[in-house]
């Protein structure tokens, strides 16, 4: 490019500055437009996600008259907590809440331990049949639980430790035992995913850590417990949280194993049968809100862990 053309370009630039005040230069304008479009998109999507919560909240606060009032759309004219108290009573909320909390914590804790151990075994030891076991892990993810629902139900209904106990077996349904067994052996809900997460996480940890421990005379088990486990705490927290949340929300397994118990998913579902009349949906909405409230609280406190989960576990890298 010769000097002349450079000069002309410079001149043009200066002209642009002359004609447009600093804030509405064309390139800036384009930028602003983009920012606005992006903001509209993001706010719109967020609105769609939050919308059900808002609908639930507004209809749960409505009294019967508001429900029939055509002019009431969003904000109830006579807000009251009747629906909440009714849902609270009919869901047997205190008992069900404690039971659910116990169940979800227990399941989360057991799955966290078992999936970590299995994930470590798959990540660090090259043994015969390793790839078969890993394939089995993936298979448990891919096969829909509906397929083994009935045999599982029957196995726990007439539980004989697979023929080891004599007689017709014990009825383990309506107790925590089915969940304990499946969680302890890392075949509970979505456990394949957790094993995969832990495996990826341990694979990304430096091997030198364990080698140093081995040189100091540690056995693989002490190396795992003392050296690897403390470093894996972020991943452990993530597995626990996901497991807790999925167990809390789960209706499928809870319905099979604990259909006669006072746990939140069952009592929430039973609202549909118990409550009659025009208030049904409002009470159900109040119940749903009370159902997700603990999770929302947990999420608000530990949001960072959820959002950064996949980054932290190195699932992608």
């Amino acid at each position, binding site marked *: 490019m010769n000097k002349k053309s450079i000069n002309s370009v410079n001149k043009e630039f200066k002209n642009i500055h002359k004609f447009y005040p600093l804030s509405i230069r064309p390139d800036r304008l384009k930028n602003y437009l983009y920012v606005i479009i*992006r903001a509209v*998109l*993001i706010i719109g999507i*967020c609105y*769609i*996600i*939050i*919308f*059900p*919560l808002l*609908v639930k909240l507004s*209809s749960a606060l409505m009294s019967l008259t508001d429900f029939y009032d055509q002019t009431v*759309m969003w904000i109830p004219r006579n807000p009251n907590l009747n629906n909440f108290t009714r849902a609270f009573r009919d869901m047997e909320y205190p008992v069900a809440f404690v039971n659910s909390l116990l169940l979800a914590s227990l399941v989360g804790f057991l799955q966290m331990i078992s999936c970590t151990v*299995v994930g470590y*075994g*798959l990540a660090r*030891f*090259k043994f015969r049949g390793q790839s078969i*076991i890993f394939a*089995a892990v993936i298979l448990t993810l*891919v*096969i*829909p*639980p*509906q*397929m*083994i*629902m*009935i*045999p*599982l139900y029957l*196995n726990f209904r*007439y539980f004989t430790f697979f023929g080891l106990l004599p007689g*017709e077996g014990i009825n383990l349904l309506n107790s925590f035992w089915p969940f304990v067994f499946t969680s*302890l*052996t*890392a*075949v509970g809900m979505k456990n394949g995913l957790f*094993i995969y997460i832990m495996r990826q996480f341990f694979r990304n940890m430096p091997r030198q850590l364990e080698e140093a421990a081995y040189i100091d005379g540690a056995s*693989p088990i002490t190396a795992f417990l003392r050296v690897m486990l403390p470093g894996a705490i972020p991943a452990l927290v993530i597995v626990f949280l996901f497991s807790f949340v*999925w167990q809390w*929300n*789960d209706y*499928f397994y809870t319905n099979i194993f604990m259909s006669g118990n006072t746990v*939140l*998913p069952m009592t929430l*579902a039973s609202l549909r049968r118990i409550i009659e009349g025009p208030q049904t*949906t409002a009470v159900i909405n109040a*119940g*749903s809100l009370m*159902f*997700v409230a603990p*999770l929302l609280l947990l*999420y608000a406190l530990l*949001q960072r862990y*959820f*959002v950064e989960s996949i*980054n932290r576990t190195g*699932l*992608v890298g």
Partner: protein
Amino acid sequence: MKRPGIFKFTLKQKINIYGYLFTLPFIIGFIFFFLYPVIQSIVFSFSRLIITREGYRLEFIAWQNYNFALFINPEYIRTLGETVGGMINNVVAITIFSLFAAVLLNQQFRGRMLARAIFFLPVIMGSGVVLMMEQGNYSMQLLRESQAASGIFSRDILAGLLMQIRLPQGMLVYVIDILFNITRIINRSAIQILIFLAGLQSIPPSLYEAARVEGATGWESFWKITFPLLSPLILTNVVYTVVDFFTSPENQLVQLIRREAFGGAGYGVSTAMSFIYFITVSLILIIVISLISRTVFYQD
């Protein structure tokens, strides 16, 4: 270090033993709580289950259950087709949407943390019982309808607008279908967005800088840098979405299978149905994986 005793192993044997030791919980669980039930359900699918006072009894009836599911039951084949069709639609829409959303959320803007938190909210709320209670919840549906009708961008108006643009027939139907299901698509793509987001953050910024120095536009650097580097994750996400869709309890076919099991044609037919379903989906997965993995680009 010498250890007296009968147990003396080479290093390789030791590694083998520890490998089995660590994976033992899963091996036990897989055999007893997974493989055994799967085999049982294969047996069930070939027999009639009779509940007796002592437990249950099986009567072998060969292919009758499969025959019933495929040729006699009027709903099954139709629902299977619809479910598979819906799955393909959903997977395409969810993958595109989650890639788009991840690119949006990866940019710098005020309130990014809050937006990410909200985008991920469906994992907490959009599954399980709460979603189940929304189905057939009359007030939710009414409110949704009224919202949709009162807004400027009501669905019908948008659909009408789309009719005016002369899109090809098939594409038009697809776009309108997505438009009507946008809520569901957004609610189902939370995990996929997270996966893409993590992938985006692992792309070195120096690549973009180099591209900008060479004069690439944002559009070009998306297709030449972002897209190829994310392609392994596209595969991951497609597989995740297929599996998620096909095991989700809101799925029509899963509901049909459930209905048949409890109070319909019986356990045998229900397991036969789930087997056919599983085989269909496995075939689709294999085809999809082999198609996509041909075009996937690996950095190393």
